């Protein structure tokens, strides 16, 4: 045990006391949060230059309303009042008389104006748009732009346009518009949690309102923590054993320690590094949650499970990667041999969302009881707001524990043979044979 710990402490120090560790510590959240951050950044960095839009209105009844609606919007909806600055572009709507003799010529002329940058787009409202008949062409409302699918002006125009059409229809039918509006008003359905009794006061508490963010964010944070926990251990582990093998360091070490001691020592070292990293992230996460007054969303009940499953996952995947790393002679070999392991370890990253949405479905239950995926998927089910049967996390834990013991045992046998093997790359079948026959 003393020698195992010596190996573990050396590996831990070699990994933590480097610039690489600090860079990695910053890089992981940057990569993880990077996608969200970039999207948020782009969302804020809206092009606020004026957008000129021309409207060809064959009904003659809608365009003036759009001009007015655009003016109202330009006055009140495009400013961030707190920061007192413009955050959306102004829409400058102009009305163009239709060319009934040659509509295509008008469309071409307007398209050319868009191409030259003079216009952002143009809207054409068919003559039957208010009361569509059999002539689909005459009823069509079309927005033309270079990228009309993602053009925000098209999204905006839908609102005032339909409101105006409805008003015209209601007026034509002789009904009172305010009555119709009141009768056809849509009602939202609020997402609330369950009411419960406050243990301190004994009173029934109001159910909490659930926002999608409140549900997804904690689960996502746990998934990412588990992902980082596994990645921070297995990747450096596989590389370090390969490097030690290539530089013949393992041969020196094996002159002093048993292969199993060496393997477990390296595992403990890497697990220590990984836990250090995740502890820093978890602490930072909790502090941030408290700062943002989101503490009530933190799934504290899932944290002990994160630790239990996390440690098991580290031993399980760490041993597997170490075994395969020990059998390889260079980086290229290890990359191809580790591909199946990577797929196995990363698959839950593609499955966590559907599992979170319906955690009690048999699909989610069975996936979360498959030992290599239990640490991540069972954790997702535990952290989701839906209550899952209490026995399932425990059965999952027993399954993971048994699978972990088997993995470490098999890895020890592979490691013992692989670590001294030089020359040709072993096949997967050979590695499995070492595991079974030693």
């Amino acid at each position, binding site marked *: 045990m*003393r*020698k195992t710990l*010596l*190996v573990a402490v*050396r590996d831990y120090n*070699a990994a933590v006391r*480097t610039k690489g560790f600090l860079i990695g510590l910053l890089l992981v959240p940057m990569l993880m949060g990077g996608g969200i951050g970039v999207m948020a950044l782009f969302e804020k960095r809206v092009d606020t230059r004026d957008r000129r839009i021309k409207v060809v209105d064959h009904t003659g009844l809608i365009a003036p309303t759009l001009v007015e609606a655009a003016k109202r919007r330009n006055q009140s909806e495009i400013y961030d009042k707190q920061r007192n600055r413009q955050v959306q572009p102004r829409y400058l709507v102009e009305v163009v008389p239709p060319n009934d003799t040659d509509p295509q010529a008008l469309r071409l002329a307007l398209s050319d104006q868009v191409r030259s940058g003079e216009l952002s787009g143009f809207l054409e409202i068919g003559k039957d748009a208010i009361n569509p008949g059999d002539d689909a062409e005459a009823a069509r409302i079309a927005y033309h732009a270079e990228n009309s699918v993602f053009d925000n002006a098209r999204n905006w125009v839908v609102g005032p346009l339909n409101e105006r059409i409805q008003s015209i229809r209601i007026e034509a039918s002789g009904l009172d518009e305010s009555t119709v509006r009141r009768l056809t008003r849509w009602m939202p359905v609020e997402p609330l949690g369950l009411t419960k009794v406050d243990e301190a006061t004994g009173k029934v508490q109001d159910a909490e309102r659930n926002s999608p963010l409140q549900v997804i964010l904690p689960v996502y944070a746990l998934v990412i923590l588990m992902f980082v926990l596994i990645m921070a251990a297995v990747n450096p582990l596989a590389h370090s054993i390969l490097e*030690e093998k290539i*530089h*013949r*360091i*393992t*041969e*020196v*070490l*094996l*002159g*002093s*320690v*048993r292969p199993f001691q060496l393997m477990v020592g390296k595992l403990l070292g890497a697990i220590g590094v990984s836990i250090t990293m995740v502890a820093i992230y978890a602490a930072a996460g909790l502090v941030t949650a408290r700062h943002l007054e989101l503490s009530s969303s933190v799934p504290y009940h899932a944290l002990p499970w994160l630790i239990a499953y996390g440690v098991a996952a580290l031993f399980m995947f760490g041993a597997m990667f170490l075994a395969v790393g020990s059998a390889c002679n260079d980086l290229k070999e290890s990359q191809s041999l580790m591909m199946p392991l990577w797929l196995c370890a990363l698959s839950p990253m593609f499955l966590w969302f559907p599992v979170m949405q319906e955690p009690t479905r048999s699909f989610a239950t069975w996936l979360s009881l498959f030992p290599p995926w239990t640490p991540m998927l069972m954790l997702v089910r535990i952290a989701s707001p839906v209550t899952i049967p209490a026995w399932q996390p425990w059965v999952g834990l027993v399954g993971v524990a048994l699978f972990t013991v088997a993995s470490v045992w098999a890895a020890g046998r592979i490691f013992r043979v692989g670590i*001294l093997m030089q020359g040709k790359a072993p096949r997967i079948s050979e590695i499995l044979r070492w595991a079974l026959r030693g």
Partner: protein
Amino acid sequence: MNAVEIQHVTKTFGPVTAVDDLSLNVPKGSVYGFIGPNGSGKTTTLRMIMSILLPDSGTIRVLDEDNAAAYTDRIGYLPEERGLYGKMRVRDLLRFYASLKDGRDVKREVDRWLEKLDLTAWADKKVEALSKGMSQKVQFIASVVHRPDLLILDEPFTGLDPVNTDLLQQVVLELQAEGATVIFSTHDMNVAETMCDFIFMIFKGRKVLDGTLTAIQDQYGTDTVRVRIEGEPRALHDLPGVEHITDRGQVQELRIAAGRDSQQLLAAIMSRARVRSFELARPSLHEIFVRIAGPGAEEASNA
């Protein structure tokens, strides 16, 4: 009393028999040289003594112990290829290796050895900054710093300059004088001849030589003649009673067939050329090695 006792040990890797029914005793306090061509089973034998590898059959007893766990810490091992963490500082690395061996007074011993091998100035440098020769000295310290009873050195002097070679040879002999048993493998026959009390040669997994240099040379007798003649060495071709000629430039080495008289050979040579020198000699270890493992031996064993 033996430091190592190997009894009928066989080790195979798949279809390849690396060591075949090997028996060998290494007396305590001796310097034992392992020689043999590349791939003949030297390193496998050393690894089995270290219990890094386990034999398929047979037994190995080391320092009066059968259980590897009981003697691992009493062995020092210098592998053929250097295995050092490049990013570690020399002193930290040596302390780590010494601690793994349960060494005593680790800090003091490390500093003493660094000073002895003239590496104190490099103690706080990273290993990757060292030259090849210095790395080798660091590796050597790693194998001796815990005062082992048995020192196993795989090619310890390769790549060292003459000054450092002399230094390490001196240290090895000092350790022997202090009571340590030393086993080392080498391709340098001169080193084996001058340093070893016993020489063991393994070829294709089997023991082919084992004993003192004198005893080994006695097996081959005085069958070698070193001749210097005036003119072309071709004059010596096809001499009766000569089995093999090795051209060593200025000197020609002739191996006489068993039962042939060297005086008759001298007369035959003198009839062909003027002789400058004619010396009867025992075969060198180099010569014996080549006879066993050289291309001629391959052909002879295949015939």
